């Protein structure tokens, strides 16, 4: 690949993370160098405790690297909060807000008037099959629907980079595979760059263009494999299955 620097949506340059715990220094991560192109779907897999979630926290701007730099869109981005969409394993919907009200939180944070925010969010709700549940509270939804609502929350802001931290880890196997199919179809239509953290190799291979494997503490990149062509073939094979494309609910 011969791209100029400005084409990278995300760049990690020698990023490390060291936690100070009492007198103990825990070298959690790095040094890491990673480049993610615009529109790529990259999975990061590794054993638990390899600092995957710390890595996403840093990219999202919730944590700062101990050393190294994080670049967004070809420029150093020391302040990243609000520029990257981040979704956790737990749905983390605000329990006192309905599905619709949860979907507009990112827009409200950006001080977009409520009515306008609702207008922007409603098409997404329809597309996600959540329109009829717009006025339900999270506790009234099934796990798969809550996860979908949480994912929906990352979209109306138009953040080009979406981080997913084991988004389907808490779901049962059946719901999980239907959600994976659903995410795959959705991502095909969306022009987003996705970084998915998982410990499930199958999930990583199924969903992504590229898989990055992190080592045990401190997490460093063991291998970085792109298989775009393989994925295209897999997708074509998947498409021939009659069940695909129908989002089955997990009721």
């Amino acid at each position, binding site marked *: 690949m011969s791209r100029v620097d400005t084409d990278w949506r995300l760049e990690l340059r020698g990023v490390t993370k060291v936690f100070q715990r009492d007198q103990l220094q825990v070298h959690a991560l790095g040094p890491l160098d990673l480049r993610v192109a615009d529109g790529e779907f990259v999975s990061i897999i590794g054993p638990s405790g390899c600092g995957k979630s710390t890595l996403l926290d840093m990219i*999202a701007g919730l944590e700062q690297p101990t050393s190294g730099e994080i670049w967004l869109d070809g420029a150093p981005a020391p302040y990243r*909060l609000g520029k990257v969409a981040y979704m956790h394993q737990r749905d983390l919907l605000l329990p006192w807000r309905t599905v619709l009200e949860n979907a507009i939180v990112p827009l*409200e*944070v950006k001080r977009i008037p409520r009515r306008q925010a609702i207008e922007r969010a409603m098409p997404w709700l329809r597309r996600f099959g959540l329109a009829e549940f717009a006025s339900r509270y999270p506790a*009234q939804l*099934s796990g798969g629907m809550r996860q979908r609502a949480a994912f929906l929350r990352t979209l109306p802001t138009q953040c080009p980079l979406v981080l997913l931290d084991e988004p389907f880890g808490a779901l049962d196997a059946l719901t999980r595979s239907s959600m994976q199919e659903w995410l795959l179809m959705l991502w095909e239509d969306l022009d987003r760059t996705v970084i998915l953290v998982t410990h499930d190799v199958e999930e990583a291979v199924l969903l992504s263009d590229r898989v990055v494997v992190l080592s045990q503490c401190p997490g460093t990149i063991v291998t970085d494999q792109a298989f775009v062509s393989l994925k295209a073939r897999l997708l074509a094979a998947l498409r021939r299955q009659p069940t695909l494309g129908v989002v089955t609910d997990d009721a």
Partner: protein
Amino acid sequence: MTECCRALSSSQLFAWELACRAFAVPDWVLPPPSAILAALLRDYRLLLVHLSVTMSEIGLGLIVSIVLAIVLAIGIVASRLIERSVYPLVVASQAIPIVALAPLLLIWFGYGLTPKVIVVVLICFFPIAVNMVDGLRGVDHELIDTVRSLGASKWQTLRFVRLPAALPAFFSGLRVAAAVSVIGALIGESIGASAGLGYLMIRAAAPFHTDHVFAAVLVSALVSIALFASVTWLERQTLPWRTRPRTEP
């Protein structure tokens, strides 16, 4: 359960009535329930006048308590300096014996509404503030991180996450405050007043109008129960997400 309680309390009332009559207890020592009820019905106008005074003291006191408690709680959670300087004072305020303070309030503020409202506030703001502090602190940190990752400011984090998350704790505190607020008003009135249920109790006790004392006690107990119930009702209205039944689609 309610049936059982009702049967028990009515049988107790009956026993009370029976005992008063059987042992010929004079009315000024212990009036039977029938005499209390008769006093209540006979002098309901008088009771209503004094009730309205007490209610306005409680109402004002509760409003001031809520505002004060919320402001204090936010300050305590937001700043270590405020926490260290103000929180001990908040706790210390509960060590002041109200009975000792009330005459001072009388000297400073006179016989009017103000000293009673201050006593109500002293009793009521504490449970609200302490619960609110715990509520604001006990917020799921990942919820805060989620909103923070969206680029929310400190104020927005408060508005979108901390305050709504603290509401159930706030209502717990308010329920306690509502139930004890009546005591505050009665203490305030018993020290020096020209109206109110507490004043009525003192004035009726002096000439041994015991039935009036009991009638006033009954009314203030009902006020306490009514306030508690209204806070519970308000909580249900404000927090539909906690009470709405879980329906699996």
